[in-house]
């Protein structure tokens, strides 16, 4: 039995128990009310033993309800423990070392080494946090643990634009800046790792080359613009204006959508974030590669980013998760 099956089974049982207990309490309250109403009648008619039995049954019901509550709580703790073991397994699979705090004088005397060590600890801490985050799809975390975490980092102090080099199969980024990325910690790192997964998960081809993924991206973009046109009863240009304004309200959460909407509309529906139009023009297929990396960074990112991607690209997002499963 897999962990995932156990989680869902435990969740279902907990939900059933909570529901059953609520129902039992409601019934008990009604019975208790009835018992109070009939107390006088029982006494006057000489049926006091019936009233006593009823009171006893009510107490038993309360006791059963308490027991169900205890079982539910125990099952909840079991589920949490199971989840902890599962995420520990993910971290182990990802090969992330345990943080070690070296307070020896050589670090104390060398500020640079200490800073570097702290950055590395912050990186490990953030990645582990992501692997334990319940809101992140399990598939994404498992793909990162099995493949993404093995990505070669040629430089984590690169001051140019972070990138993935498909021929040399490495990424370069700036860890210190990325830990404070406006779109959430390690946004660039997970974006570049997304490129790496796209390139290396499937033998002889890229996951993002999937025809239906590209079609879904285009269709979702068209549909979104059409829906805004309908909502505001405006032209396509007017819809693009409204979309730009919408993106400006949540600049960083919409960064990934801004990038891909910008690619598909020649920049007409783009917020602040995005690759340059020159970049898109060099290769018409780049929007798929970047969409895959953006989606991966979004699902591994802070709460709200994946939801933003789903908001603009619902079909493509579903297809992305299906493609991600192929990487397992």
């Amino acid at each position, binding site marked *: 039995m897999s962990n995932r099956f156990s989680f869902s089974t435990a969740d279902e049982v907990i939900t059933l128990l909570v529901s059953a207990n609520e129902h039992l309490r409601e019934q008990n309250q009604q019975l208790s009310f009835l018992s109070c109403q009939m107390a006088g009648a029982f006494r006057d008619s000489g049926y006091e033993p019936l009233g006593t039995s009823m009171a006893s049954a009510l107490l038993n019901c309360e006791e059963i309800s308490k027991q169900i509550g205890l079982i539910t709580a125990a099952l909840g703790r079991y589920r949490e423990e199971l989840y902890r073991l599962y995420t520990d397994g993910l971290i182990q699979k990802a090969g992330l070392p345990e943080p070690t705090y070296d307070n020896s004088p050589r670090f104390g005397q060398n500020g640079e080494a200490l800073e570097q060590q702290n950055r590395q600890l912050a990186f490990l801490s953030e990645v582990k946090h992501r692997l334990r985050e319940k809101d992140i799809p399990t598939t994404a975390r498992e793909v990162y643990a099995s493949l993404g975490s093995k990505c070669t980092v040629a430089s984590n102090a690169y001051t140019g634009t*972070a990138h993935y080099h498909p021929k040399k199969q490495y990424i370069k980024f700036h860890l210190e800046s990325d830990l404070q990325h406006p779109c959430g910690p390690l946004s660039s790192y997970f974006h570049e790792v997304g*490129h790496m997964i796209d390139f290396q998960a499937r033998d002889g081809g890229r996951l993002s080359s999937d025809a239906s993924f590209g079609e879904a991206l285009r269709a979702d973009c068209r549909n979104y613009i059409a829906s805004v046109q309908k909502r505001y009863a405006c032209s396509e240009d007017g819809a693009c204006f409204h979309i730009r304004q919408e993106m*400006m309200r949540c600049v960083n959460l919409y*960064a990934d959508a801004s990038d891909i909407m910008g690619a598909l509309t020649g*920049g007409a529906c783009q917020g*602040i974030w*995005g*690759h*340059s139009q*020159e970049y898109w023009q060099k290769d018409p297929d780049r929007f798929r590669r970047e969409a895959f990396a953006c989606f991966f960074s979004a699902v591994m990112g802070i709460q709200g980013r994946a939801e933003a991607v789903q908001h603009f690209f619902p079909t493509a997002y579903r297809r992305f998760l299906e493609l991600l499963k192929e990487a397992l």
Partner: protein
Amino acid sequence: MIQIDEQLLASAEDYFQAFGHMLPLRMLPLHLSNETLCAQIADCIARGKDDLTEQYCGGDDEDILY
């Protein structure tokens, strides 16, 4: 060419300022692809960061993905 909204531009410049001499990692703000960007790059070059121009142009390897 997109009409540049002053508010958008101001926000983009805030980002730029937050990152000091660097452009925002990975992504480049579209709305800076005008005189402002040129001025910023010129400023960076003046500060000895002339590799930035190459970075912005995408480098010389067409396969690299940002």
